[in-house]
């Protein structure tokens, strides 16, 4: 039942399904204020600044749109507000505070106020210590998944928010809602970027 549909979901919904209960460039501009175009539903100002600068450092704008261009931070706020439990929300608040406290201790400021170099340092620290996601089959992790912590959760959710945004899904990835056929082996050069759906 539905096993096949779940394959596609595996990567993208990972964030939503697995991570939500515990819950996340080069900097283009200093994130000293919350984005002017955004009134967060869940995040407090300091948290919103953290998420905006984190997603921007993860997926900055290049010749393709960055995470901020597709409002990944705004979506993350919305999804935490609308789909997380109150317990999960409080846990996330605590994790964000801890993350910022570590930045202050190690680099002298909260994440959003760090230099580009210090942001990269702070994130590399997390990359080396944060547990990884298990592989998944049909939408569910295989084996026992240990909690991956704030950083990798937020990274996964950022990728999900980015890749499922309409702009990336329709204009950057290969959008083909009705393929009409299945061809098992085509040269990648004929396709280019990954399929969007």
């Amino acid at each position, binding site marked *: 039942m539905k096993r096949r549909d779940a*394959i596609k979901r595996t990567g993208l919904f990972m964030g939503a399904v697995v991570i939500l209960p515990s819950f996340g460039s080069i900097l283009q501009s200093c994130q000293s204020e919350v984005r002017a175009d955004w009134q967060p539903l869940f995040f407090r100002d300091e948290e919103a600044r953290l998420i905006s600068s984190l997603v921007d450092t993860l997926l900055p704008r290049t010749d393709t749109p960055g995470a901020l261009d597709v409002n990944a931070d705004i979506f993350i706020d919305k999804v935490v507000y609308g789909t997380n439990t109150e317990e999960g929300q409080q846990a996330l608040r605590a994790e964000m505070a801890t993350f910022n406290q570590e930045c202050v201790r190690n680099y002298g400021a909260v994440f959003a106020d760090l230099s580009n170099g210090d942001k990269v340092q702070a994130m590399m620290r997390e990359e080396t210590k944060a547990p990884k996601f298990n592989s998944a089959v049909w939408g569910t992790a295989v084996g026992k998944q240990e909690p991956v912590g704030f950083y990798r959760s937020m990274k996964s959710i950022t990728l999900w928010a980015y890749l499922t945004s309409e702009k990336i899904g329709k204009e950057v990835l290969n959008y083909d809602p009705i393929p009409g056929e299945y061809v*098992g082996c085509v040269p990648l050069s004929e396709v280019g970027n990954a*399929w969007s759906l």
Partner: protein
Amino acid sequence: MANFNIDAQKQVTYDAIVIGSGISGGWAAKELCEKGLKTLVLERGRLVEHVKDYPTMNDDPWDYEYRGALTPEQREKHYKSIRSGFIGQDTEHFYANDQENPYTEIKPFLWIRAHQMGGRSLLWGKQTYRWSEIDFEANAKDGYGVDWPIRYKDLEPWYTYVEKYAGISGEPLGLPQLPDSHFLPPMELNCVEKHVKSRLEKEFPGRHLIIGRAAHLTEPLNGRGKCQYRNRCSRGCPYGAYFSSNAVTLPAANATGNLIIRPFSIVQSIIYDDQKGKATGVRVIDAETNEAIEYKARIIFCNASTLSTTQILLNSKSDRFPNGFGNDSGELGHNLMDHTYRIGALGQVDGFEDKYYKGRRPNGIYIPRYWNISEETKSDKFLRGFGYQGGGFRAGSRVAANKPEFGPDFKDNLLKPGPWEFFITGFAECLPYHENKVSLDTENLDKWGQPTLAIDCEFKENEKALNKQIEEDAVEMLEKVGVKNVVGFNNHHEPGYGIHEMGTARMGKDPKTSILNAWNQVHAAQNVFITDGACMTSNSCVNPSLTYMAITARAANHAVEELNKLNI
């Protein structure tokens, strides 16, 4: 499609009542209606008309407020079935409300229900395999359970019959343990799957890797369109390309003019007439108004789904049947089975970085059973066997989230297809154990004040030994064919995750040890037929839905013959 007639009449005695409109109920309705019987289908959920009631069929991820994630309220509503990992915003409306329909897990058991016209035929995996002679002989040979009263040859013409109408794509192989169906052209393997196939079949003589046999049309059939490779099946297919009651059997039944389908009709019990020695109708509770209604019919087909059918039978008590309808043997509710699930191996495949695929194939690969199919393949560790499903694909963001990278290059790579992965996951047969059972729970009532089910079922030593072999073989096969970073896994799922629950009102030769005869008639009330998963005497290791279709068509044909002879 013509509108459905939902105007059921209390005064009328229908030729037939069909309880449930899922895979088997749809077939019962089609066959009985086409043979001229005025047939009342009782569906406990709402009407779901093909195409019209598939609200999410064309949605993209960004069309959902939360891109598919469920809200806390939705998770609460489906607090049981979310364990499956299959429910998203796109399909949530096709899953039953677990709060309104509670059940008790004496031991952990996942019971996935879909309460609407079409039932789980909207959500199923479409994998369709004939059972083999090995399956029907299994109980007799090793002594577990009771012998099936039928053999492969009894079902063979009915397999062909339903396959021609349902439309099954696949490739013939001529294997005795997995008989070929009447096939439409197979779907295609992708490059990595072809590579693994050739290596595997060379390294492991006697093992085969094939494209899944699936109820997806690869050519138009009877006005239904072929698969468009969108892989959005579980939302309902606008082309009718996969088999569902909604797209296939119920419209056919409706076209005869003999179908009445009454939604929101919860069958509470079957009415038994002591004088006549048979059932005369059913008691229904209207799910919306709570009104109690009785409907009469000459024959009754029970197709509510394995456990729901047995729940109705257990709840149908009378002087003649104090322990549940047709339960002279005491076997009603017993011998519950499911396939073991999510045990296997996966890894990465190098060398195909410049290759990709086009289309989203709603199908994968299949490795047919190779243990205990001959003297040479006999295991001394376990009885019966298992098959694998799986596939190759290029991974997405899950791999990227693990990479110790971020920034511009990371983002550019994210937009490219990820590494090739390949996985297989086994489905093993479960022996029929008397003590794996369901019983009526009269303390925990549902929204309508009705008794619920208490489920007491577990996998035992033989299933554990099969699972061990599944994982060992999976790792060995993947490593030998050159898959990298092979990881074996066993998620130790409780029964129910396979969503192949079978048994609890089994067929058998002897009324003292079974509920149904060789034609799916209740031994002690022969105008009642049970042709959903409840009837199964053993559970093979292959997916059961095709066998439900064949058994139902065969039983419906017999029912009409018996009616015409005035035998029932």
